[in-house]
Structures are given as structure tokens and as C-alpha cells.
């Protein structure tokens, strides 16, 4: 609309401009003043028209007042300035040519109406906005409360569902809250736990620093502590826990609550104890085992000044025979019974019994004076073994040999003490067994321990400490020397000459028997060649033969046949110059695999002799399938012929065996011939060959040669 200068429209706009300039500074609108003026222009027009309308309507003033509020003139100063402006300029700019008096009255009434309209609109707007913000606050509160509820629900679920026990107590120790896991651990209801005081939960196993840590936490001097703690359960059992207690502070940092997190470790602890028990106890007898015993012995020998210890080292006599004849199950039951009896012997404080292994037991006593105590302990043990043990309806007599060591702590190592006890036990055993002996340092030094020999064996072979003696085999028919049995000896640097019974079992045990056996075979075969070379001239006499013992271990050695053939070939000796002696017990129950190497050797011409015949329980019918050509009767058969007249039963037995052997085409050799009467008797019975002191003791090879020469010339 283009306003005519100073026309009504132009005057209206000038009024609006004046109005907007007056009010704009007190509005908070983001519009510019010209924009604000554009907002006021229709309001000015409305007032102008109301002023000049034929019939006056004061309500137009109310509308304009309300519109001011809508234009964000909410500061009452805006109303005041508006009314000033209307009062001064409305009639002047918009009155036209109407009656001035009438116009002024209309203007005044419009102003009153504007004030009322403004006030009402502002009131409504204020109420609406208050309502809106209150609603918003309420909704926000709802959202927050919901989130809080959800978070608390989550928190509670964590608390309740946690696998570890959680408890909260105040600083006086009163339990305020516990979770399900905790009540389960204690085996009581939540009500029972709540209100209890944690300071009462003491236990004899509490770590000494536990309650000091607790006090430090309560005082706010530490944030948390971690301990292993036991609790009494109402049912009398013990609950073991991994316990972590933390201090909870309020917003200002003051100690407020204590929070306990506990993990039930009872099962784990029991398992540990059981594992520890299993690691330290013998599964068969339930006695402490070797490692447990060593722990205790270590403690005993390292105990403070004035402390002594006493040790009994027990080895059952003849236990091997029980195992061999009645089986391992019976042997085990015997050991269990012995263990029970020994246990009953050592019940005083500081006493213990342990099983070292096999049929070896130890009993230990400690204290300020064990001299008499250990003597009594050994006596109790001997007495405990007196009553026979009943196994499978058999009454077995148990005998044992005990080595006793007693002394002050701090002088010897556990190993030394045990070695001394071992030696002393062997002394007791070699003195006939069923007794106890006291350790004697000088005797210890002299005694050959199995252990010492075992460790010296390998180097002994390298150092050439072994040598061979030969015992002649004499033909009973004509008394001529037909050969000799090679017998290995050990010239021990400290202990002198040792017989095979002292070291062959050890060599078998360690596997050294194979190289040692090969060495013996080599030496013997070389010796046989020497003899043959020397006697070669006397074609009349039969060539001397060499008998060599084979241990059961050598029988299973896969290199046996190869080694034997190699040795014979290298020495240039015919296989028929060699006879291998195998004990009867080694061949009992032998299967074809075991017999195969022997059979191959026999096929080549090597004689196989069944040694110690009659001591085992071999089935005579079995002899047919064994590749043997000679039976060597055990010396027990010839013993009965040493007296005169000879035992008729022995005579009958030997006669029967000889008859059987001959019918199987086996030659018979007898051992242990010590008298001429024996020799004569055996000759009558039909035995083929004999050896024994009557003819010659084992000796160096030269002696055999001499004998053979004597024999040949005699």
C-alpha cells in the first residue's frame, strides 16, 4: 500500500513507528525493530478503526492488548509505554476530523481495555508456561526415575545374582545387607545374617594381622584388605573364604560402610589338603610316604640344640618269598597288616611311621632324649611282628630286621642318617635277621651297601675290576677233567673280592648284566681257546669245554645270539666248546619267543644246561620242549649223600631224575660234591659229570690246566 504523504495511511504508519520505537527497547524479541513495527502496524490499524467506528467497540482494545503479549512484549513496561504512546499519539495521528472530546473518551476506554486484555493474556500465557515447564519437569522426573529404577534393578540383579558373596555392614560391624550367595555359603537365612556383628566372626585360624587390618579400614586408614578367612557355620562345619573388604565413603569422603566380597574356597582347600595328603602318603598302607618322611627327618636332624632323634629302619625278612609264592595281592595284604601294627607302635608325640617302598618301613622318634625311646620303639616293633599274620587262611610268620640310628640333631644330613640305618639293617639281616642292631660308625664304614655297590658297578667294568675263576667239571666215569664253569668275581678296591651273589642281582637290576655277561663270555671263550691250543697236541684227551652262566636278563637281550656267535668266531672256537647255563626258574613258563635264541644256539652246537635243577617247580614233561642237553642237579640233592649211609629218599630221587634225563637224552651234572663217598654214590646212580670242592675249588685258569694235565698223565 503506497501511503499518500500525510494521508491517513501515512499517519497510521507514523503512529506505528513511534509506538515501536517506544516499546522495542523493552521487548526481548529477536526480531529487528522494523520487523517489530510491521507486527504493530495491524494493531495500530485496529485501534485507529475502533477510534473512528460508527459504533464504538472497546473490546478491540482487549484484542490489541492480548496481541502485545503474543508479540512477546511480556515486560509490563511494554504495556506502560504502549499506553503512554496511545494516549499521546492515537487521537493525534488517527483521530481524523472527529469530535476531539469524543475521540479522547474513546481513546481512554481503548486504553483501559488494552490494559485488561494485556493483563489477561499475560496471565494466561504465564499460567500456560508454568504448566508446560512443570509438566516437562514431571516428565523428565519420570524418565529419570524410570532410568534410575532400571539401573537399580540392574544393580540389585548383580548384587543378588552374583556368584560371590556380598555383604554390607556399617562401621560398627552391623551387617546391613547380604546377597543370596553369602547366605548360601553360611547356610543360614538372610534374616539370621542381617543384624549380626562381623567383629564376632572370629575363628582360631584367623591370621594374626586380620583384626588389625579391620580396625585400620574402619578408621579410614586403609581402603581395603584381602585375607583368607575361616568362619564357623551354624552346622559346626567350617567355611573357608577368600575375603576382600573395602571401605565405602560418603560424598564428602568420610568412611560410611564396609563392603565384603567373599569367595567360598572350602572345597578348593579340601582338595588341596587331599592332594597334599596323596602326595605325602602311601596309597597302599596309608602311612606317610618317603617324601613326607624325608621332610620330617630333615626337620628332626636340623632341630635346635639339645634335640635328638632316633630312627628304626625295618626290612621284612623273606618278604620276596611271600610275594613269589602267594602272589602280590597276598603280599600287599601282609604289608597293610604290618603297617597297621607299626602305626600302633609309634603313637607318642614326635613319633612317626612311614613306608619307604617295598617292604621297607621307618619309624622316627624325636625329643631331648631319644636314646631309650628308640630302643623301646624298636622293641615294640619286634614284638608287634611276633604274632603271625593271617592271609587267606594261612598263618604267615613275619620277621624283620631293624637298623637303629640314634643321635643328636645338627650333626648329620638326612641322607647320611638313612644310609647308616640301611647299613645297620643289613648287618641285622646278615646276622640272621629277626633282630635289631644299633648303628656303629666303624661297622658302617666297613659295610658294603647295595647303594655303594650299585653306583660303583659301571666304572668297575671299565676299570677291569672283574675277573673270572674256573671250577673244573669232572667226568664221573673216568675222573677226567672235561671242562670248567666260569665264575665271575669282583675285586672291589675297598671290600676285596666279592662273589656273584653280592653284585649279580644289582647288575640285573641296573641292566649292567648285559655288558658284564658279554665280557664274561668273551673272557671265558678266549680261555677255552687257550686251553684247546695247549692241549691240541694231546689229541687223545677230549677238548676242554667252558660253562658260562646266562642271567634271565641276558636271555631277553635281542643281541644274545649275534654276540655269542661273534665272540666264538672271533676267538676261533667251535660252538661245541661252549655250554650256556640257564637257571631252571628263568625258563619256567618260558614261551617260544624266549626259547628261540636258545634253540638257535643249540642248533649251532652250543650246549644248554639247565642250572639249579630241582629248586624250581618245573614240569618234568616240559623238559622235552626245552632246547637243553644237560641237567645240573642242585647241590641240595647231593647234600643228603655226604653222610653214610646216604639218605635213601635222596638216592631214589636222584636215581629217578637221572633215569628220566637219560631217557630224554640229557646228560646229568651234579654240583656240590664234597666227599669221595658222594662221588662214588653219584657214579653208581649214573650221573655223568660232577663239580665240587672234592675235585677243586674255583681258581685261576692255570690251575685248571694243571689239573687237566695231571688227569691226563694220571
Amino acid at each position: 500500500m503506497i501511503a499518500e504523504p500525510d494521508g491517513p495511511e501515512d499517519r497510521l504508519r507514523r503512529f506505528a513507528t513511534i509506538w515501536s520505537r517506544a516499546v522495542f527497547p523493552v521487548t526481548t524479541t529477536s526480531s529487528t525493530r522494523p520487523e517489530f513495527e510491521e507486527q504493530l502496524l495491524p494493531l495500530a490499524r485496529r485501534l485507529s478503526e475502533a477510534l473512528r467506528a460508527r459504533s464504538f467497540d472497546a473490546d478491540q482494545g482487549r484484542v490489541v492488548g492480548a496481541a502485545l503479549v503474543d508479540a512477546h512484549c511480556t515486560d509490563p513496561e511494554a504495556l506502560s509505554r504502549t499506553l503512554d504512546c496511545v494516549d499521546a499519539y492515537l487521537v493525534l495521528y488517527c483521530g481524523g476530523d472527529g469530535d476531539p472530546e469524543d475521540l479522547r473518551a474513546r481513546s481512554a476506554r481503548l486504553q483501559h481495555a488494552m490494559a485488561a486484555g494485556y493483563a489477561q493474556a499475560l496471565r494466561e500465557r504465564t499460567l500456560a508456561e508454568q504448566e508446560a515447564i512443570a509438566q516437562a519437569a514431571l516428565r523428565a522426573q519420570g524418565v529419570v526415575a524410570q532410568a534410575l529404577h532400571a539401573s537399580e534393578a540392574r544393580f540389585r540383579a548383580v548384587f543378588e545374582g552374583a556368584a560371590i558373596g556380598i555383604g554390607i555392614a556399617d562401621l560398627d560391624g552391623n551387617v546391613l545387607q547380604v546377597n543370596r550367595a553369602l547366605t548360601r555359603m553360611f547356610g543360614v537365612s538372610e534374616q539370621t545374617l542381617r543384624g549380626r556383628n562381623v567383629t564376632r566372626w572370629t575363628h582360631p585360624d584367623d591370621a594374626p594381622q586380620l583384626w588389625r587390618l579391620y580396625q585400620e579400614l574402619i578408621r579410614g586408614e586403609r581402603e581395603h584388605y584381602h585375607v583368607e578367612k575361616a568362619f564357623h557355620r551354624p552346622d559346626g562345619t567350617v567355611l573357608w573364604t577368600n575375603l576382600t573388604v573395602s571401605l565405602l565413603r560418603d560424598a564428602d569422603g568420610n568412611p560410611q560402610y564396609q563392603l565384603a566380597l567373599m569367595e567360598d574356597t572350602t572345597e578348593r582347600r579340601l582338595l588341596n589338603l587331599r592332594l597334599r595328603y596323596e602326595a605325602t602318603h602311601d596309597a597302599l598302607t596309608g602311612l606317610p610316604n618317603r617324601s613326607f618322611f624325608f621332610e620330617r627327618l630333615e626337620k628332626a636332624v636340623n632341630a635346635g640344640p639339645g634335640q635328638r632323634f632316633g630312627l628304626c629302619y625295618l626290612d621284612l625278612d623273606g618278604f620276596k618269598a611271600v610275594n613269589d609264592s602267594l602272589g602280590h595281592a597276598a603280599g600287599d595284604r601282609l604289608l597293610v597288616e604290618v603297617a597297621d601294627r607299626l602305626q600302633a607302635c609309634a603313637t607318642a608325640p614326635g613319633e612317626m611311621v612311614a613306608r619307604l617302598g617295598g617292604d621297607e618301613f621307618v619309624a622316627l622318634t624325636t625329643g631331648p632324649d631319644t636314646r631309650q625311646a628308640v630302643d623301646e620303639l624298636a622293641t615294640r616293633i619286634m614284638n608287634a611282628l611276633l604274632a603271625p599274620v593271617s592271609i587267606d587262611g594261612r598263618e604267615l610268620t613275619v620277621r624283620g630286621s631293624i637298623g637303629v640310628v640314634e643321635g643328636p640333631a645338627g650333626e648329620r644330613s638326612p641322607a647320611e642318617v638313612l644310609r647308616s640305618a640301611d647299613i645297620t639293617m643289613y648287618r641285622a639281616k646278615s646276622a640272621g635277621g629277626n633282630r635289631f642292631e644299633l648303628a656303629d660308625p666303624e661297622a658302617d664304614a666297613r659295610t658294603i651297601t647295595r647303594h655303594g655297590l650299585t653306583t660303583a658297578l659301571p666304572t668297575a667294568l671299565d676299570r677291569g675290576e672283574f675277573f673270572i675263576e674256573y671250577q673244573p667239571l669232572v667226568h664221573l666215569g673216568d675222573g677226567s677233567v672235561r671242562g670248567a664253569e666260569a665264575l665271575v668275581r669282583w675285586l672291589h678296591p675297598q671290600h676285596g673280592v666279592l662273589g656273584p651273589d653280592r653284585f649279580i642281582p644289582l647288575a640285573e637290576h641296573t641292566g649292567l648284566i648285559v655288558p658284564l655277561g658279554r665280557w664274561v663270555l668273551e673272557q671265558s671263550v678266549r680261555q677255552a681257546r687257550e686251553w684247546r691250543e695247549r692241549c691240541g697236541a694231546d689229541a687223545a684227551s677230549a677238548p676242554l669245554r667252558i660253562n658260562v652262566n646266562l642271567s634271565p636278563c641276558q636271555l631277553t637281550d635281542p643281541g644274545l645270539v649275534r654276540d655269542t656267535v661273534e665272540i666264538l668266531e672271533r676267538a676261533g672256537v667251535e660252538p661245541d666248546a661252549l655250554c650256556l647255563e640257564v637257571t631252571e626258574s628263568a625258563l619256567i613258563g618260558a614261551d617260544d619267543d624266549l626259547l628261540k635264541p636258545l634253540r638257535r644256539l643249540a642248533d649251532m652246537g652250543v650246549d644248554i644246561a639247565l642250572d639249579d635243577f630241582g629248586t624250581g617247580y618245573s614240569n618234568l614233561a616240559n623238559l622235552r620242549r626245552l632246547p637243553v642237553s644237560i641237567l645240573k642237579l642242585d647241590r641240595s640233592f647231593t647234600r643228603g649223600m655226604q653222610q653214610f649211609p646216604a639218605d635213601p629218599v635222596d638216592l631214589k630221587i636222584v636215581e629217578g631224575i637221572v633215569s628220566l634225563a637219560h631217557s630224554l637224552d640229557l646228560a646229568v651234572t651234579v654240583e656240590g660234591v664234597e666227599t669221595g663217598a658222594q662221588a662214588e654214590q653219584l657214579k653208581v646212580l649214573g650221573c655223568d659229570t660232577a663239580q665240587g670242592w672234592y675235585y677243586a675249588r674255583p681258581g685261576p685258569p692255570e690251575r685248571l690246566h694243571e689239573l687237566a694235565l695231571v688227569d691226563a698223565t694220571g
Partner: protein
Amino acid sequence: MERPVWAPRSIDITVPSVSRICDFYLGGAHNFEADREAARKALAFLPGLPKIVQANRAFLRRAVRFAVDEGVTQFLDIGSGIPAFGSVHEVAQAARPGARVVYVDHDPVTVAHSQTVLEGNDAADVVAGDLLEPRDILTSAQVERLIDLNRPVALLLVAILHFVEDADDPYRAVAELRDALAPGSLLVLTHASYEGIPLPSERAGGVVDVYKDIRNPLIMRSREEIARFFEGYDMVEPGLVPMPHWRPETAPEDEDPYAFSGFAGVGRTA
């Protein structure tokens, strides 16, 4: 025991809110007595506060129109406060129907109120969020629904950064937001400063104390410090200036002296 950290704060209308105080300055009734009491204390030190707020809103209005003229029709208004007359969505959608606006505020009451105001407006929404956690804002459902981050966005940080202490590293948050914006995006920013206030700074400092008392400290920064928020932006003419001087539509000399307090500016990402 203490509430776990992930539980939200509760609503306490006896604690003054910066948004509602501002509404009171603008003559609104979206406030409670606690807000008004704090506002009256601040006004005692700085009677021109409403004029400063008004100048902020006038600048915001001009800047939004400028953005639309530049072809930017997506607005992310962080620290939006209580929607008053002349809100961003009103101005933007008047200039360009369908312009997208997402308001962000950390005050749950403000958010709840904004939701009511925006009911039925499909192109505008509000999300509860914190300027200091830009990732949460950018990945919110509202932003994902309304804002295409592959196109230019006008990021509005109007009268908010002076409520973030240096310890909370507002520069990092602003940079993180910048890095998420497409080239051609705009940063629209105002910030309080002692520079330009027509009063000795000791007097104006009383206002700072009032905000400190309501645990919502007001951080006055120098022009230089404020300019650093535009790192990575090219300043739009006339640069960082007192509010009335930014592309005025009426003569700046007609403005209230308080309107010249603090600085305003718009930057554009390359």
C-alpha cells in the same frame, strides 16, 4: 552406599538451571523460583543481561537465515535451551520449509519441554546429550534420522561454550564435532567475554560468582581464546565480532550497549 556411576541424576527443581534462567531473562515463565532467584542476583550485577541474551537470539536468527541462504538446511543446535520465540526451527523452516533441526541439551527438563514444543514437527527433534560427548550426539537416533552428515550441517554452539571449563577441554569436543562434519559445514558460535561489557569487569565478575554458586560456572574468555574454537574453519565475513556487528540488518548504533558484550562468528569448513 553410593549410587553406581551409570545411574542418571535425579531431577531437582530447587537447583537453578541455566536454560530456565535464560528463559526468565527473555520474559518467559518456563522457570521456577530457584531459577528466578539466581537470575535476580545476576541481574543485580549486570542489569543488561536480558539485552545480551536478546542480542544472542537476534544473531542466531541472522546466522540461521545466512546458513539457509548459503544452502545449508541441516541444523545441529547444541545447548539449545528452552525453545523460545524465534527458535532455530521456526526461523529455519520459515526461510526454508522442511529444514532439518536437531536440538541437543543435557538438561532433562529442557529436553522434555522441547519434545512437547516439537510434537508434530517431523523435521525437528531433540536429544538429551552432552557437548563433551560428541560421539553420543552424532550417533543418536535423532541425528541419524534427521541429519545427513555427508552434506553440510550448521553446527550451532550459541551461548554454550562459556559454560564449559578448560579442564573439560571444550576445544577437543569442538574439534571432534568439526571432524565429523562434511565440507561446507558452518560453525555458528557466540561466547561471553569481559570484552565489550559496558561495565568494569569487577562488577561483571559478580555474575560469574552467581553462576559459580549454582554449580554452573560461567567462563569468560578473551577474543583470542574464542577464536581458537574456529580452528579448521574459514571465518565468514565479518569474522569474530561483537554480536550487533555481525551482518546487521539495522544500524548497530541503535542497539543497546549491552548487546556488544562478548563475540559472535560463523566459520565454514573447507
